């Protein structure tokens, strides 16, 4: 199971995403934004960071990268694609996902351990969860406010494409507490919080059991790794 992690200039969590894939039992493949070659990977991750400094609009310049042509193609053919934070922003800029991400309503960057409810456990990236399950993974962004027109919001809600919702605290003013969404097919998922930072005991969010022991993010990666194993 080979999962490509694309590095853009300004990507920051690319090595963390690779580590997460490894810990989930997959083989991470480092891909470069300037290439047109997906190197035969089975799934793709667009990692977090500040690609091109997040100048212009978050993810906007990266979405013009050469490799994005292949990403859009592969996504449309059903390849699992996960966009985390800046990766989510790129997916909206590339119009693979609806809506847009704007500056947090409180105006500041925020880093916190965030509780999410998994609303849809049938996407490629959430199979290992149960619908309604609450998970805690880190959130860290300055421009994570999800917006879309009322009509779009109604539609994606109606189609069950709100995959994650913020619980307890809406950290950035996202409409309808939306933390992540998917495309119609459920292979493309984007979310603002960072599952790759909650995969290794000792370096994740605090839990009731012990500090930094949370590994709720691992399910994202095992969802894809295991499914492809089953199919293979």
């Amino acid at each position: 199971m080979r999962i490509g992690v694309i590095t853009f200039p300004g990507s920051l969590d690319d090595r963390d995403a690779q580590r997460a894939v490894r810990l989930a039992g997959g083989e991470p493949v480092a891909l470069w934004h300037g290439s047109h070659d997906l190197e035969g990977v089975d799934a793709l991750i667009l990692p977090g960071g500040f690609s091109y400094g997040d100048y212009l609009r978050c993810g906007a310049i990266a979405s013009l990268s050469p490799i994005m042509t292949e990403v859009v193609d592969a996504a449309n053919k059903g390849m699992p694609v996960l966009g985390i934070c800046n990766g989510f922003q790129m997916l909206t800029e590339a119009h693979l996902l609806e809506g847009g991400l704007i500056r947090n309503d409180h105006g500041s960057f925020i880093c916190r351990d965030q509780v999410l409810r998994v609303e849809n456990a049938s996407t490629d990236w959430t199979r290992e969860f149960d619908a309604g399950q609450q998970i805690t993974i880190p959130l860290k962004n300055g421009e994570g406010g999800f917006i879309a027109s009322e009509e779009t919001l109604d539609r994606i809600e109606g189609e069950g494409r709100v995959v994650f919702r913020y619980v307890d605290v809406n950290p950035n003013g996202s409409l309808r507490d939306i933390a992540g969404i998917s495309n119609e097919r459920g292979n493309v998922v984007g979310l603002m919080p960072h599952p790759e930072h909650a995969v290794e005991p000792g370096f994740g969010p605090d839990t009731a059991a012990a500090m930094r022991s949370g590994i709720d993010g691992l399910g994202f990666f095992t969802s894809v790794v295991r499914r492809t194993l089953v199919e293979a």
Partner: protein
Amino acid sequence: MTTETSPTAASQTVEPGDPAAADAELIEAPRTARLDTVEVAATTPEKEQPYAALGLKPDEYERIRNILGRRPTSAELAMYSVMWSEHCSYKSSKVYLRQFGKKVTPEMKQHLMVGMGENAGVLDIGEGWAVTFKIESHNHPSYIEPFQGAATGVGGIVRDIISMGARPVAVMDALRFGAIDHPDTARVVHGVVAGISFYGNCLGLPNIGGETWFDPVYQANPLVNALAVGVMRHEDLHLANAKGTGNKVVLFGARTGGDGIGGASILASDTFAEGGPTKRPAVQVGDPFAEKVLIECCLELFAGDLVEGIQDLGAAGISCATSELASNGDGGMSIVLDEVLLRDPTLTPEEILMSESQERMMAIVRPEKLDGFMEVVRKWDVETSVLGEVTDTGRLSITWRGEEIVNVDPRTVAVDGPVYERPVAYPSYLDALQADTTESLARPADDAGDELRAQFLQLVGSANQADAAWITNQYDHYVLGNTALASPDDAGMIRVDEESGLGVSVATDANGRYSQLDPRAGAQLALAEAYRNVAVTGAKPMGVSDCLNFGSPENPEVMWQFAQSVEGLADGCLELGIPVTGGNVSFYNQTGDVPIHPTPVVAVLGVIDDVARRIPSGWQDDGHNIYLLGD
């Protein structure tokens, strides 16, 4: 070296269109008059030069003339003035800082791979790993433009770490602000915190700790001290020197613009003038994205063994990089200044030499490796130009439009600057201050429950006791996935080796009030606190970096405080058996004649063989016992 300027300057900065510009011959003249070449300088000894406006004293200017055997060209004057500024030359502090190198035992040197004097100190932490760390100030720029000042402070210290060959892995910030309810404090606090957050987060470096303190003494002179930690394999160590005749001198990173020109000297030589509207000097604007790309680009250059020597550009820009690289190497270098890629084509050669544009590096590259070097910079879209080469002449020669505008012995610029033993005086106020103890305070009456209650609430409600989460929540501490401890723990901790769990722990501490009462003891208390904060995480303290924030060195009472602090710190380190590996001195922190409290910020770094055994500061489980150690 980062850029540190004093706000003063403000009133001296020349802006285009400003009538004052007419006087600032150095800056204006070359645009209109003929080039001030070495040849011209030799034949026009009588020409008056604006050395005073550039922060040089008459005797310093005389000394330059003696060194050169003629008057300096305007370009040479620019270089000497910035490099001989307090900030770059350490001319007032050098005689004291030597103690850090002298008061050491063989045991203290055991793990020291690179000591003071380089961009940052390097410690051997075992398993083939080395770690480098340094703390530096960006105080004055952060008062003028808090967001950009603090942001570029982080940028500067991170470049110091890269230039050692290391991958930066964490940052910390030690902050001092004025009174929390002063109307200007909000501007400074929110700007500084947002700037650190913006730059550090965008670079992808976890912020693992720091300090925040409010005191009216820092009102118009906040302290923004930024620390960075980097790790490398032993063999990746790089130093800033230009060796090997014929090797190329390459400038890469951002283009050179008119940022903070003259900042390092005109600006750092004086104190903040009171009264009158503040006319603001040009500040540097940081581009963390450019720096992130520069980090990855440099690491790839190091991995490909494509550079012989490397130096970051900060205060004094190209003046500093060329003269320091040449001094530390074979001594000669020839530069064609026209090759510098400019953001603003109207810059004069003097301005190019002094520009403090951020996110630039200078490398020494073997000719046969130049193609490989260019391939890597192209991959990262980093603009690069070859400025010249290393020579065996012992001279730093710089040409512009085909004519020589600089011809100096680089050591006279970078190494053999003036050194002062400034007068020291025991502060006249100190005995009275020390005598004014709590003894003289009224005792509460027996039935003063309400009074005690009010005092207690006042104490716990103090800004300095408050949770710093509103700051630390703006900092990413997850990125890179190796943060073992961060706020609210006493020290930050980073895993260095993912296999073995080898890691380092760092804490910064200082208490300006203790230092005001007794600078010697104050410095030692700061050291002891940082040492304890590292020790309680389970790490073994190994080394110290310090940022010494003081008032004007021309004030003998401040100089006394400085002398006491350094001696205290050096003695303390000797006692604890850990070396000072590097640091930074920031003088002229004062408003009018009133200096800040002496604030020596001490950072201690320790090593732990497996971060899984770290000890956090929070309660972990029900039923644990609580012990109080010490007395």
